[in-house]
């Protein structure tokens, strides 16, 4: 005789069993990424949610760490044969380092099978290929340029941003005369200073020379680098930078621009995500202009970074990782991510109307010029350590730059075995 109590117990048992079976039928896709800010985590969670709806067979196990911790953590887990199924990674020298250790799964077949050539522009694709194979599937592109406070510029009498270096210098001096520091820089974690070095070298010695320097084929003590450093120094000496750059991080610098203490900051498009999250309005409270051309005879470029996804060679669920990758490349996911993160989509089939007027400018600029990764993604990680220290040293006291260059070249000799 089935009593009411037995019935309830049975029902609970059956439901529990169904739950266990459903969980067993779902395969886990372990992901580790560096989008650890509230904004990044929320947007990622949103994408994992839509992935789970479309792929009920998979469940994403989400892990994240801040950029600096991530750099160490991911390599330790991979070297310890305990890798995630998929992880976010910067395209460029960092991916190359893992590829050279044979620790990544080639994704060339995945690229061809899904005709990714049709949706990923050639410039972005070049960042996916290492030693002839695809290893990094791009998620978004960031452009580095000047993000400024239009009200501060207007107060100093400028309605349009500068296009040439002379105009830039004139505007900077006018801002100083108006009692505002032209440039905010938060180099506490060193990397924000690298874009100054990147543009100074690329725009005085040329992008080709810079690539040689990154590859260890030119020397940090070369006259070309000295000229770039001297140019940068003249800005610091001229009072263009907010004091104590090394005491602030990039969000502090963003705050200084937002509250009008400084006029602009040289930063990547991710700053728009930070500002939007703080309630600033694109085009009104902040705007964008590319780094002004210093020598019209040299090619115009943009520095920036490409974030992508890599699948470890030891991934226990590569199929799940690939399913997630496909989802990430869908126009819907790309639009959600680009809007949520303040990034440019890696694919070309996203409707441009999703971009704010500021991101539209950055996107248009990216479409016109060649793309070069920033310093720490262009040269090997041990070399980048040496260079990043030099930039922080420079911001502390630019007068000793010749010594810093000599020390950095010593690192280069060791790293590149010159």
């Amino acid at each position, binding site marked *: 005789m089935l009593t009411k109590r037995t019935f309830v117990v049975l029902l609970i048992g059956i439901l529990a069993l169904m739950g266990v079976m459903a969980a067993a039928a779902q395969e886990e896709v372990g992901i580790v990424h560096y989008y650890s800010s509230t904004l990044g985590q929320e947007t990622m969670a949103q994408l994992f949610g839509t992935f789970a709806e479309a792929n009920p067979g998979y469940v994403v196990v989400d892990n994240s760490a801040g950029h600096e911790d991530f750099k160490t953590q991911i390599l330790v887990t991979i070297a310890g044969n305990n890798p995630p199924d998929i992880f976010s990674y910067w395209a460029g020298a960092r991916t190359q*380092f893992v590829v050279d250790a*044979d*620790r990544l799964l080639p994704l060339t077949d995945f690229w061809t099978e899904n005709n990714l050539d049709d949706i990923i522009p050639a410039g972005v694709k070049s960042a996916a290929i290492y030693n002839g194979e695809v290893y990094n599937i791009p998620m978004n592109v960031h452009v580095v340029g000047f993000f400024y406070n239009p009200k501060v510029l207007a107060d100093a009498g400028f309605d349009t941003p500068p296009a040439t270096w002379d105009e830039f210098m004139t505007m900077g001096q006018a801002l100083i005369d108006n009692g505002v520091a032209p440039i905010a820089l938060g180099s506490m974690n060193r990397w924000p200073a690298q874009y100054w070095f990147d543009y100074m070298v690329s725009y005085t010695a040329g992008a080709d020379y810079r690539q040689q320097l990154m590859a260890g084929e030119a020397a940090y003590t070369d006259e070309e680098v000295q000229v770039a450093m001297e140019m940068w120094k003249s800005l610091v000496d001229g009072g263009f930078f907010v*004091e104590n750059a090394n*005491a602030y991080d990039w969000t502090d610098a963003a705050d200084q621009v937002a509250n009008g203490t400084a006029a602009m900051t040289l930063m990547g498009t991710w700053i728009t995500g930070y500002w939007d999250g703080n309630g600033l309005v694109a085009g009104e409270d902040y705007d964008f202009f590319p780094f002004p051309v210093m020598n019209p005879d040299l090619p115009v470029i943009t520095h920036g970074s490409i974030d992508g996804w890599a699948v470890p060679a030891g991934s226990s669920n590569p199929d799940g990782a690939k399913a997630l990758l496909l989802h990430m490349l869908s126009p819907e996911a790309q639009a959600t991510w680009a809007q949520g993160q303040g990034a440019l989509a890696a694919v070309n089939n996203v409707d441009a109307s999703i971009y704010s007027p500021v991101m539209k400018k950055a996107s248009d600029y990216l479409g016109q010029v060649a793309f070069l990764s920033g310093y720490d993604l262009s040269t090997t990680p*041990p070399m980048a*350590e040496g260079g990043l*220290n030099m930039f922080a040293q420079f911001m*502390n006291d630019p007068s000793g730059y010749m010594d810093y260059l000599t020390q950095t070249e010593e690192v280069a000799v060791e790293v590149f075995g010159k």
Partner: protein
Amino acid sequence: MAKQRRIWAAIFLALPMFIYVSIVILPLISSFYYSFTDWNGFNADFNLIGFKNYEKMFSDRLFANAIGNTIIWTIAAVLLPTIGGLALALTLHGRGFFSRIYKSLFYLPISLSLVVIGQVWIWIYQPDWGLINITLEGIGRGDLTQAWLARPQYALYAVILAWTWQQTALAMVIFLAGLTSVPPELLEAAEIDGASYWQVTRRVTIPLLAPATVVVIALGVINSLKSFDVLYIMTRGGPFHSSDNLAMFMYNESFQKYNMGYGSAIAIVLFLITLVVIVVYFRLSTNLEHLYD
């Protein structure tokens, strides 16, 4: 009977020994091995390169810098927590209501993780609204304000001060415990003989606190040698290596520059230095065991 006890001892010791060997001894041996290689910590292949990593230390200015900073930190670790902890313990020794409240307040830093302490002190040192600069401006000495953690000449000392804040609390607790074992008859006898408070403290109390002092100094030195967390949070050894100690330098070489072989060699040197300190400590504490006899 004795044999049976030994068997039981072996059985009970087996598990702790297994854990100790697998998480302390084996990694130590493997570090020693890697210190003779050029392993980058990531690739599967590497070469044995003999003593090259150890030779490199002698010409590496960053290693010399880290050694110098470690020595500065060790000297600070001997002096600051010892003097501060002793002063606090002597002041707060007793059973009064306020004494108990103050003891708890000064004890508080111990209950905080060094990560939290690092973050709190980052705020204290913040150049625009940090406690130190605000105070300096408040007393009309705005000219003394600094970006404390961003300037190479101050960063190391700024971190040591934050670390000392916690270490002093630990020293105070050890001295307070030491004070309870000072025989009250001795203090009374000294008082009856007409000794002033200062004389009693200097001639009776402090000498009798020798065992506690040895513990405080040894713990301070050992903690300073292995201090990493507070440095990692506050400066990561920066700006540009100015606050690197050996532990931080080892981490940067191993995990930022991917010189795991060199990093292992630095770890071995750090281990040997710590070993010397520990041996000296055990010698001293054994000698002091008979102080109260």
